[in-house]
């Protein structure tokens, strides 16, 4: 974890940490602006942009039409010509509306132009199931983004990391997606008042342990931490690593951990099949094969869209119980 430049930490909910991060970027960078659907007048449908219009005015906090391709395109064009846009994509699921601007323009422009273009754009978006919002408002699509050379992808789980990721993303001169979690909006945590960065590409060992490694990100970090406590009963001393950034991925921290613990599991909320966990598992077996005492396990959602019903959704999203059960299975307990 990056050290804050100040000791002035207060407890803030995740959503307020997001707002504070955006606010400090706007204060720091005169060419930064925020654009998205209902981010100005309404302060965002999650409240994460609250107060920004009043403080920074219509020039810098902009309500857009419901036009995701247009909004992301606007961000790409403005970034390429000297602005530092912060674009809000209300639900991660709406990536479907703007995937060309993301995949073929934003991610590739610099490369295609032989380095002639610079794209300091930050995209904020909300992922996550658990609120009965059904198949088109609950997805975790980080794997789509991590597969695109040219993008950086962060998925902060805590208020501290949310604020610091947003600031790091906005200071970076590449396109960075900051994937937030809508279930975590009220989650409290310590947040220093001054601006600070959570460095891009640096994992955080959230819970040190000796004989089992769990790599978990997004909201699943919290579930994994609960599972780790549960596993203590069986003599499992779990190290929990939050990569925070998925692209570029901090391979070293994970590999060092596995060399020590000899057993590993990856947990994410996204569909397990071809999820980002597959990449991490592959890296572990490539780089730490000789150290492994068990197959690398993966926990993720089953291969179906997110169901609506309260009778189904809780069985779909991984939780501390299912994580602990899979850990026991893989460890032969």
């Amino acid at each position, binding site marked *: 974890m990056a050290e804050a430049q100040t000791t002035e930490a207060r407890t803030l909910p995740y959503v307020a940490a997001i707002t504070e991060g955006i606010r400090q970027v706007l204060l720091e960078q005169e060419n930064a602006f925020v654009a998205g659907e209902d981010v100005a007048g*309404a302060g965002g449908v999650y409240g994460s942009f609250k107060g920004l219009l009043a403080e920074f005015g219509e020039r810098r906090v902009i309500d857009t039409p419901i036009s995701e391709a*247009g909004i992301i395109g606007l961000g790409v064009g403005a970034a390429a010509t000297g602005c530092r846009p912060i674009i809000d994509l209300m639900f991660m*699921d709406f990536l479907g509306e703007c995937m060309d601007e993301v995949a073929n323009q934003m991610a590739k422009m610099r490369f295609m132009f032989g380095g002639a273009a610079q794209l300091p754009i930050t995209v904020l978006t909300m992922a996550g199931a658990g609120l009965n919002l*059904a*198949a*088109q408002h609950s997805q975790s699509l980080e794997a789509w983004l991590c597969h695109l050379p040219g993008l950086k992808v962060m998925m902060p789980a805590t208020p501290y990391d949310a604020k610091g990721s947003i600031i790091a993303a906005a200071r970076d001169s590449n396109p960075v997606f900051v994937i937030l979690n809508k279930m975590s909006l009220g989650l409290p945590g310590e947040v220093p008042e001054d601006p600070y960065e959570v460095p891009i590409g640096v994992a955080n060992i959230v819970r040190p342990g000796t004989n089992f490694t769990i790599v978990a990100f997004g909201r699943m970090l919290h579930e994994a931490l609960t599972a780790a406590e549960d596993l203590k009963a069986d003599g499992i001393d779990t190290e929990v690593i939050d990569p925070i950034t998925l692209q570029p991925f901090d391979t070293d921290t994970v590999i060092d951990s596995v060399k020590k613990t000899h057993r590993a599991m990856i947990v994410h909320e996204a569909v397990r099949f071809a999820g980002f966990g597959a990449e991490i598992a592959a890296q572990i077996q490539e780089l730490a094969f000789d150290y492994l005492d068990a197959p690398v396990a993966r926990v993720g959602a089953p291969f179906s869209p997110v169901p609506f019903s309260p*009778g189904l959704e809780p069985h779909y999203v991984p939780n501390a119980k299912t994580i602990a059960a899979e850990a026991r299975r893989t460890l032969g307990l």
Partner: protein
Amino acid sequence: MTSQPNDDTLRDMHRRMVRIRHFEETAGKMMEDGKIPGALHLYVGQEAIAAGIMVHLADTDQITSTHRGHGHLIAKGGDFNRMYAELFGKATGYCKGKGGSMHICDMDLGMLGANGIVGAGPPIAVGAAFANKFKDNGAVAVTFFGDGASNEGSVHEAANMAGLFKLPIVMVCENNGYGEYTAQKNHQAIVDVADRAAGYGMPGVVVDGMDVVAVYEAAGEAIDRARSGGGPTLLECKTYRYYDHVGVRGMGLSYRTDEEVMEWKKRDPIDLFEARLSEQDIMSKDDMAAVHETVKGELDVAIQFANDSPMPDPSTLLDDVYYVA
């Protein structure tokens, strides 16, 4: 060629509007009581549009809907029991609890789904209209979308193809003045979405969406044109949603004034229509009261049915991801 609705049609439209109104009012209460999980976008205020259009359609005609989709399904003949069961997430619901409010559908009635993605309906309706033309079956597709949705690229692409291929489709913009919390003047530089019709090579018509007879007449003309090979129409209905964007009170933001809401409610589509029906001696006050009571009784039954229905079994989670022969 504008057809006047006959008395039976007038009574039919009244019943459809009343069904929508009570269903939605009840759903709003159920949501506030915590009985309905997830997001609920109520159609109250806009009933005249669904009723005035759907009364022209057969089950073989298709519609695509929006996130605000209950009214469309009800007007197309939707079954209260299966609707409430779906809103509750029960196995007996329209989507077996997989979809909920935002994905409610009835393929047998040609209702190709509410939709969680703004602007997703029109391209799908264009596909249905294309298939109708392809099969030469005389069926018409109607797509509903909001003023906010009219700014999605998908809507323009669909409209352009509808015009180009002269498809049997009616594109209905339900302009309620807001996309979520953003007023129309802050999301587009025009007042009438119907103005865009010229750019798609189709007629654009603006109608009072609070007046079910006006909607009926304009829709009748557009649907006749579509059915007889005359191509698409962009029909814009000016309307208003009474409740918040989502739920009843929503986020409690002050993006519109109480006065504005009151102004629109003075032209409540059901009140207006009922005054007219009684003035013209088509329905007596008692007749109308009986419709309301019958509908409320049906809703009681539906809620009981939904309450008594089982939750889907977790073993069904992987069902229906693919068609399996």
